[in-house]
C-alpha cells in the first residue's frame, strides 16, 4: 500500500456528483453538503466578490460560440454558476469594454469561474474520500 492509498478512505461517488453540481451552481454549496462550513463560506465570499465586482464593472460575459478564445472565455465564465446564468438579470446594462474597468471586469468574472471550478474539484476530491482533506475544517 502506498502513501497515496493510505490517504484514501472509502468515498461516495453519488455524494461527489451532488457536491460537484451544487458547488458549481452556487459557490461553496458543495462544501455545505460536506459540512465544511469554513471552506463553504470562504469560497462563497471569494467567488461572489470577484463575480459581482466584475459584473458591476461591466465586464464581458462570454456566451458559447465565436472563436477559440471566446469559447475559452465561455468555459471560464460558466464556472461561476449562478452568477453566469443570472448576469443578464442582475446587471441588465450589459458589458462595456470600451473602458479599462470593463476589461478588468471581464478578467474578474473569468477568475471567479475558474476559482469556483477549482473549489468544486476540491469538494469532489473530499467526497471521493481524501482523508487528509476530510480532517481539515
Amino acid at each position, binding site marked *: 500500500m502506498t502513501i497515496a492509498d493510505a490517504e484514501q478512505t472509502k468515498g461516495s461517488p453519488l455524494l461527489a456528483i451532488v457536491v460537484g453540481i451544487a458547488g458549481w451552481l452556487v459557490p461553496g454549496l458543495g462544501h455545505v453538503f460536506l459540512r465544511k462550513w469554513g471552506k463553504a463560506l470562504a469560497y462563497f465570499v471569494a*467567488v461572489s466578490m*470577484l463575480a459581482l465586482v466584475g459584473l458591476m464593472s461591466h465586464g464581458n460575459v462570454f456566451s458559447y460560440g465565436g472563436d477559440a478564445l471566446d469559447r475559452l472565455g465561455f468555459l471560464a465564465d460558466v464556472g461561476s454558476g449562478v452568477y453566469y446564468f443570472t448576469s443578464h438579470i442582475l446587471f441588465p446594462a450589459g458589458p462595456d469594454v470600451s473602458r479599462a474597468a470593463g476589461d478588468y471586469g471581464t478578467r474578474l468574472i473569468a*477568475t471567479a469561474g475558474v476559482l469556483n471550478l477549482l473549489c468544486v474539484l476540491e469538494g469532489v476530491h473530499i467526497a471521493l474520500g481524501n482523508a487528509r482533506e476530510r480532517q481539515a475544517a
Partner: protein
Amino acid sequence: MIFNHFQMMVIFALAVSIAFAFLSKHTMAERLRYCVWAFLAFLVVAIGIGWLMYPFSH
C-alpha cells in the same frame, strides 16, 4: 459602480488569497498566515511590475 484600477487589484488579490489559503492549508493559523502573505505578495509584485513598466509609457 465603477472601481478604480487599484481597488480592483486589491479585490482580486484578496479574493484569490482567501480561496488559495483555504484550498492549500489545513489549519486556521496556517490559512491566515498564507492569506496575508499571498495578498501582500500580489500587491507588491503588481505595483513592482507597474513601476518597471513606467519608463515604457513615455
